[in-house]
């Protein structure tokens, strides 16, 4: 039986826990932290970074460092929330053909859900390295306003 894991995909930070012997244990990331910043960046060379590393380079690469993307999930480009966020976010928020939100990272358009999936994929990679197996049954708790 696969292990049961729970993921908190947060607006600013994300966290993963695994059920072990009846208790939920938080899995630490590569640097020993219990939470990982929900940040994705693409460097000048096209390399994608996620988490702490993406956060550290943010100031050198503000237009291609995406944070707080959860706020944009499921919203239309024309919605007042997106229009307001657009004025304060350093990264490029664009409109898709169907009116959804797209984020431009070095010329490539990504949906907010796609950016979130990069964060999940990163956490999954770290987790797999630690637990040595893939979680099949996965609970996903999303806190905050959606």
């Amino acid at each position, binding site marked *: 039986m696969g292990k049961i894991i729970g993921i908190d995909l947060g607006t600013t930070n994300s966290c993963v826990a695994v059920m072990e012997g009846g*208790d939920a244990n938080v899995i630490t990331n590569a*640097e*020993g932290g219990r939470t990982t910043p929900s940040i994705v960046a693409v460097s000048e060379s096209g390399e994608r*970074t996620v988490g702490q*590393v993406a956060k*550290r*380079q943010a*100031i*050198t690469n503000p237009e291609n460092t995406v944070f707080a993307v959860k706020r944009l999930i499921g919203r239309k480009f024309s919605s007042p929330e997106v229009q307001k966020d657009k004025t304060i976010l350093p990264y490029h928020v664009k409109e898709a053909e169907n009116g959804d939100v797209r984020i431009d990272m070095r010329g490539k358009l990504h949906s907010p859900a796609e950016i979130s999936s990069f964060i999940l994929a990163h956490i999954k990679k770290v987790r797999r390295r630690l637990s040595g197996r893939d979680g099949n049954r996965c609970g996903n708790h999303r806190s905050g306003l959606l």
Partner: protein
Amino acid sequence: MAKSKRIVIEDEDEKIPQEPLESPPDHEEEIGEQLQASDPVKDFEEKLAEAQKEADENRERMLRMAAELENFKKRSARDQEDLKKYATENLIRQLLTVVDNLERAVDSASSEGENEQSVVDGVALTLNEIMKILERHYVKPIQALGEPFDPAFHQAMSQEEKAEQPPNTVVQEYQKGYLIHDRLLRPSMVVVSKAVSNGQSPDNTIDTSA
């Protein structure tokens, strides 16, 4: 062979949906065998008692295992607590000698007739000592200045237009970073160069962006 066939029939009442699957063709034959069997009720009771005993044993074992796991969890939690509490013991003991030396330095610096140079020398020696201790605990400083900016080790604090440095180079270090074993203990706090906008360099130096 005959024995297993008999069981099929005995279980007939409880396993009606399974019975036809097992062996419907030789049903009549089995009934004949059943009549010859010693005592089907007694046989059934024996089997039941056996199964009951096995179930009890399994239950007993399961409970014991659960209790053992619970104990193990408690013990390992306590062990971890202890480990956390005293993990720094060895390091702190070594740091105490540094504290002693610094105390002596303060004493001698505040006493009359002590020249400044010897105080500086003393503090430098103490710094050296503490770096040795850190090294023994696998703590290493990160080389940042002049290196290409690497977010895996450096934290960008700000950017500066520099014509004499290739872009994305560490041009200033506010605070040194450290590694412990292979893990980042603290990133270097750095200023990163960026290409001069509109080609006008602040001080006229040769462009080395290649």
